[in-house]
């Protein structure tokens, strides 16, 4: 069963966001890691880079394909998760915990409200599978 925690926000392109005091942590959903299977490489943005919502900022590669990761929100990258670079399979094992990708200081807090709730995201991937 696909895990979709209630306390996170999601994008149609399967990223998740956890907001804490103006900074968001970003990763990819359990559904996304299950679809990719066998993550073998993760490329993360440079700390300090300014990104816009919807911009391709990271790459995750499975055995089969390379997929872009789009930033759900705008702002400045404040930290990246070296652990997933060293051990890409963390993305498969712990997509919502130690498998996070980067942290970003929000430049426009209102953007978070435009993201999908857990319920909306569940409905979206349900539709996609149907």
């Amino acid at each position, binding site marked *: 069963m696909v895990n979709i925690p209630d306390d996170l926000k999601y994008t149609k392109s399967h990223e998740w966001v956890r907001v804490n005091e103006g900074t968001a942590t970003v990763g990819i959903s359990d559904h996304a890691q299950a679809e990719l*299977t066998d993550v*073998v*490489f993760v490329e993360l943005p440079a700390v300090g880079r300014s990104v816009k919502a919807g911009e391709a900022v990271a790459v995750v*590669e499975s*055995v089969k394909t*390379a997929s872009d990761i789009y930033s759900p929100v705008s702002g400045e990258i404040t930290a990246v998760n070296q652990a997933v670079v060293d051990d890409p399979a963390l993305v498969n094992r712990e997509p919502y915990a130690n498998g996070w990708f980067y942290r970003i200081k929000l430049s426009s807090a209102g953007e978070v409200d435009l993201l999908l709730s857990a319920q909306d995201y569940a409905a979206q991937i349900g539709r996609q599978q149907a």
Partner: protein
Amino acid sequence: MLKRTPLYGAHLERGGKLIEFGGWEMPVYYTSIVEEHQAVRNAAGLFDISHMGEVIVSGIAAEEFLNAALTNDVRKLAPGQGHYTLMCNERGGVIDDLYAYRMNANDFLLIINASRIEADMAWLELRNAGRADVKNASEDYGAVAVQGPAVQEFIDVAFPSASCGGTEVKRPSDLKKNQVGVFIHDFCAIYIARTGYTGEDGFEVVVPAAKLESVWKGLLAAGQSHGLKPCGLGARDTLRTEVCYPLYGHELDEQTTPIEAGLGSFVALEKGAFVGREALARQKTGGVGKRCVAFQMTGKSAPPRPGYPIWSSGPDGKRIGRVVSGTQSPSLSLGIGMGYVEPDYARVGGSLEIEIRGRRAPATVVKKPIYRKPV
């Protein structure tokens, strides 16, 4: 509308993730490419290869016709034997690569690529001009490949009989590499060949379409206690890439010759006239403009992918070719691939650079196959 194999329902039942391949809806994996890859290297894996085409060539002129149409020398095949061969155009470009089995003096079975069935049939019919009987039996047959070191322990359980045609054996496990036998299964004649596309021991089983699902289920049951797993095209691709078997549309196409691809040992220049012979003989003595090399990434890097540019190494590096197959090797845990480069850069041990998303990562030309079984 994508075509579905007789095992479509069985794939859904096992949770196969389906993708388009050569006009067919095929499983890319069931659980994970890496798990399925390791099952084949360490135990056993079962693949649906029903998308591949079957062509039956028979009649008194069959041998002569095939020897004029294919690069390898079919006269070398005794009944019940098969070999890898290629079909080329006049320029030596590859129309298809295939397996040819001689079943009897005047009967041959060709196993061809799914995406090339129409092209091959058109070309064979043009060349044949009515001499031999050439029949496209692709709709009549399905096929599975059962591959891995444990397969010899259970293949006879799934097919407990002696052969009644092809190579004469008491049981399928007595077949030697490249031998094929006809066996009776569920009142039906099936072909079992000791061949494969993974670099492991194993068998390919060609079965009338209506009986394929019972063969699939019979093999899964026989192999269950030996670690047999159903495997998708994802693992099929990583397995064949590790052992440098070509895939049509990647290493091979109509603009590429077997000599450039490093498949010269399957081109029998001495056998007499065949289509493409002059062009291939010229390349064999005069040299080629590009060469297919195997490479592995030197350090930690993103996996190479088809289409990525290849550069010579160093600050004054130039673009010398392009990647045609590339993946993360599950056996070696590093990026591997094959690509075409200018012949000066094809030396084993030489340095290359693979351009990945605008940055160049170092790679080394290695001897084929990239992966060898530990002894």
